[in-house]
């Protein structure tokens, strides 16, 4: 699978990344190599094989819906890059 620099641009945009020209070229080469190696998986017959997303049987874990103490708002906001009036501040998203 050869990936072209234009495709890298599309993948980067899905990944919310902005790449410089030389990064696009580098990643096109590297991703192509990795995906070419991955093509070998097609040598294995997996007809009728169930996919395994998780090795353990994963069950939803329920608990009683009761109020429990949580961390203070100030403590949680302390790591935020921008804060105003006890809220996370972000650029305007609705005109």
């Amino acid at each position, binding site marked *: 699978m050869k*990936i072209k620099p234009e495709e*890298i641009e599309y*993948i*980067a945009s*899905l*990944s*919310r*990344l*902005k*790449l410089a020209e030389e*990064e696009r070229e580098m*990643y096109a080469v*590297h*991703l192509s*190599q*990795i*995906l070419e*190696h*991955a093509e*070998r*998986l*097609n*040598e*294995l017959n*997996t007809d009728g*094989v*169930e*996919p*395994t*997303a*998780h*090795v*353990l049987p*994963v069950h*939803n*874990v329920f*608990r009683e819906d009761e109020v429990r103490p949580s*961390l203070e708002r100030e*403590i*949680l906001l*302390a*790591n*935020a*890059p*921008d804060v105003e009036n006890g809220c*996370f501040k*972000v*650029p*305007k*998203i609705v005109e």
Partner: protein
Amino acid sequence: MELYRLTAHEAYDKLKKREVSSKELTEAVIKHIEDVEEDIQSYIHIDIEGALKKADEVDCLLAKGETIEPLGGLPIAIKDNMCTEGINTTCASRMLANFVPPYDATVVKKLKDRQAVILGKLNMDEFAMGSSTETSAFKKTKNPWDIRCVPGGSSGGSAAAVAADEAFFTLGSDTGGSIRQPASLCGVVGMKPTYGAVSRYGLVAFASSLDQIGPLAKDVTDCALVLNAIVGHDPHDSTSVNRRYPDYISALINDVKGLKIGVPREYFESGVNDEVKSAVINAINLLKELGADYEDTSLPSTDYALSAYYLIASAEASSNLGRYDGVKYGYRSAQYEDMIDMYKKTRSEGFGSEVKRRIMLGTYALSSGYYDAYYLKALKVRTLITEEFKKAFDKYDVLIAPTSPTTAFKIGERINDPMAMYMSDVCTVPVNIAGLPAISVPCGFDSNGLPIGLQIIGKAFDEETILRVAYCFEQNTAFHKQKPNERR
């Protein structure tokens, strides 16, 4: 002998007998760090003041006649992807350079409950993505056996710190070999427990179905003691398994008579260095002399594990790392036009090159049109690999293989060739794919004096048998007693 040279169980015995104080142990290790850290660079953050304060507290408890649990009072260190309340947890990334967690990871809390003295946070590949610790945004850790070489990765700081006696033990995390491979390259003991045995709460997520926390230690006894301290069900991690966990110290039996060892031939094929092969074969022969039976076997899907691993791990990473958006915590770009631009600039400036590569690989493997061909195919191959292990364990108690196909490589040698770097994990990734426990123990040295690791793989939740084999091997060899500075 210098105090910092002791194993954790030796140091704890002395502490218990009041032959040394926690402060003496802590000061000895801090002094030693001051001597060697300039060369080794294991630590991202050292909390001398906090460590000495904690050591004093432990000494007060001891003076009052209170007993402390094993490992209490010993200066130790944690890989920098596990949350430590009030102490920066960076994942060796610009993205989290200023992140101060408001809570402790469950493993950190468990160690604190045992009165461990936490000395600091250890260097790693950025977000645990890498096999050499070179992708760290902050520094390059050196291999204590040869400072021109990498310590392995991603828990390279954790392995180098133990090898250089900069901590009595450390914690690492293992997604595709990130505890075992650096343990092998640095000549220490490293274990990846069964998926679900140790809580991942507070471990910064890389690939959630593969990540597992485990010990890096000076010998197998220390490894078992650390495992005792960190295993167990945790309501904060829905994938942690609620079962009875044994006392792993009682698994340390110097006897392998009658144990059945399988030796999967695929682990000795392409790319495995001859000196590594012969050290591992010598180890298997020794175990045979000690009474174990071994047999060649085959796990034919092994050759496909690496590709399946990089697709699955990258897919999960692309999703897990979506949270770094510059809003709630972490880095935010200084200048941007709008919300989307803020996301893009924040992530492009905050993440390093390898992290971006994995996010894009994972995004591609999950994207419309490629999902079935790459991600779903990899999950089906995961089923095949898991079933082959299951079948093998119907016949064998443990499987034995090399941990890493080569010994430590030179700094810079593979960093610009992702496929060459990924090949470092070829012997370790199948274990994560199947969620099994495995340990790496020192089993020899190559002609350059660099350590070689023996990998012992067990059935799910049968850490006891791999510890027994590792312990018996260790008791009948002296590789673990060799120190880097004595061979220089």
